């Protein structure tokens, strides 16, 4: 899966690349508007990550260019602008998602995968992980073909885990994924903890192995090992 990252902050671009490469994405990075233009016209990408504020241009124009070129790539806008108008504008222009800086890398990863799923990348509508199978069109979860009844938040949590396998997930990033940007909800970590506990219980009750590892002081990791 090919991803183009258009981000002028080299360190941030590198951080994103490192993270996505680990997830098996093929990443290309450009740091300016001028460099981005030929790339988006010459090559096909599955997903393009665009920073709105570029030193020599504005990311909105890149979205327009992509749409005029009838690109099928998924577009995720990342921006330090938290203004609602910017969010609406980029979505109106045809981007698929919008993330405000600073964001969690696992969140970006999950968003990319979600876009890929929505575009039916690979033609499947199911994810499998060992004995766990998820039909994400019907939002149903099976362990050894017997259905597990999960609440909405538990389902979201499981999807987040599966999008970020083998990655240490911080509690903050998980809370933000579940409750959005205004996750400054009091004790959201406590709620998160109870959700993780329930999810773990529901999966193991149906005979799944316990893949959710607790990392002391940080959060959780969903891993086979």
């Amino acid at each position, binding site marked *: 899966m090919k991803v183009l990252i258009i981000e002028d902050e080299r360190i941030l671009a590198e*951080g994103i690349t490192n993270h996505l490469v680990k997830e098996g994405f093929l990443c290309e990075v450009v740091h300016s508007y001028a460099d981005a233009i030929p790339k988006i016209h010459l090559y096909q990408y599955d997903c393009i990550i665009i920073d709105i504020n570029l030193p020599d241009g504005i990311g909105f124009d890149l979205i327009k260019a992509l749409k005029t070129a009838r690109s099928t790539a998924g577009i995720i806008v990342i921006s330090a602008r*938290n203004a609602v108008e910017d969010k609406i504008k980029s979505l109106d222009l045809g981007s698929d998602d919008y993330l405000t800086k600073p*964001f969690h890398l696992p969140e970006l990863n999950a968003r990319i995968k979600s876009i890929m799923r929505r575009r039916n990348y690979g033609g499947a509508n199911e994810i499998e992980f060992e004995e766990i199978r998820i039909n994400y069109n019907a939002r149903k979860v099976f362990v050894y073909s017997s259905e597990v009844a999960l609440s909405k*938040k538990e389902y979201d949590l499981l999807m987040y885990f599966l999008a970020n396998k083998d990655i240490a997930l911080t509690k903050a*990033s998980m809370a933000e994924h579940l409750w959005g940007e*205004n996750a*400054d909800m*009091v004790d959201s970590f406590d709620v998160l903890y*109870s959700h993780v506990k329930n999810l773990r219980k529901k999966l193991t009750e149906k005979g799944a192995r316990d893949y959710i590892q607790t990392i002391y*002081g940080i959060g959780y990791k969903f891993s086979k090992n």
Partner: protein
Amino acid sequence: MKLQTFTNLNYILVSAFIYAIVAVSFYLAVEHVIYDEVDTRLLVEKSDFENFVDRHGYSETSFYFVEDKLDVNPASAPSPVVFTDTILQHRYDARSVPFRQVSFDKEIGGKLYRVSIRKSLIESNHLLSVITIVMLVVLCAGLSLLNWFQQRSSKRLWKPFYDALSKAQEFNIHHGDKLTLPPQKIYEFNELNSALNKMTEKIIGDYQNLKEFTENASHEIQTPLALINSRVEGLIQDSSISGKHVRWIQDIHESALRLSKLNQALLLLAKIDNGQYQAAEAVDLNKVLHKHLDKMEELFSLRSIQVSIDKNEPFNAMINPSLADILVSNLLNNAVKHNLRNSGFIAISVAKNKLTVVNTGLPLTVEPSKLFERFQKQNASTGSLGLGLAIVKKICEISQLGLQYHYDDGLHTISVTKSVVAATDEYLTSTYNISIQ
């Protein structure tokens, strides 16, 4: 007092005073002229009398026609010529008539006589009073006319000033329009207008710069924070890091996140201040409330907080929808954050004009009057930013909503009311009312 009223009053007082002086001195001058005239004529008559007596001698009868006007009495010792005023009875009726007399000595037939010649002042006095009255009437009319004219002309004269004043009063920095006052013929007003024009242009410019600066600074802060977070998240994935360092990294991570939240909250306050959320529409706060209650349900049950809704009516307020969301969510978060650990409850009531959130909790450690200020934290150790209620207050301010806080016996009550002045009777005793204009 208006400048015009003041100057008019001053003008009237001063002119009345001056006219009084003028009137008095005019009266005195006319009187003096009349006396002068009468005295001259008396002296002429004195000479006539002396010539007559010298030529024909004196006899009572020869001067009968001037009876009462001539008085001749023997005198013992010589005295100088004197002019005096005197009042005599009229010959036929009892009227007192003012006279002017000159008294002098005259030798008639070797004997010394004191002679007084008189002249009636009645015509002169009449003349004097007529002159005085006419003068007073004319002066009064003149004064009123002048005053009327002066009022009219000063009204016209000051019109540009009052125009500029009312425009300056209407000036609103949030609208971003500088004053454009027209040039004036009068130098001072022209200067005033151009000064106001320049000043508001500068204010608007500076304000714009400040707004941009606040926003840009905040964006610039977000980028390095994003860098820190991406690096720290990278580090977290590194399994070679030992336990102690993991904790340090976690601390860095949390602090960076907190900083970013703080930055976002301050940016929100700045944006509200800058009037970037002025687009208000009718929002039913009750609906917003229920949306948030649904979202927070799991939190309530986790903290075993009982939530009850006493009154459930629509509360339509003119407010920006995003701000309505933030307002309600902050109120609810606050009620959860400062609730009791166990066995707490939240009682919510929404009436047509009032939204009340009551929650159990420990007594305040900060002063109630400072509760809604920035960075006033009930408990420093909680992860609270101390900005939630400051944002609530700011939102109420710009949405013309009233905000009250009241504490009584373990119950914290925060009410948002539709009308700013709506004082809540039941809380009058110990309610802290935040005055919001």
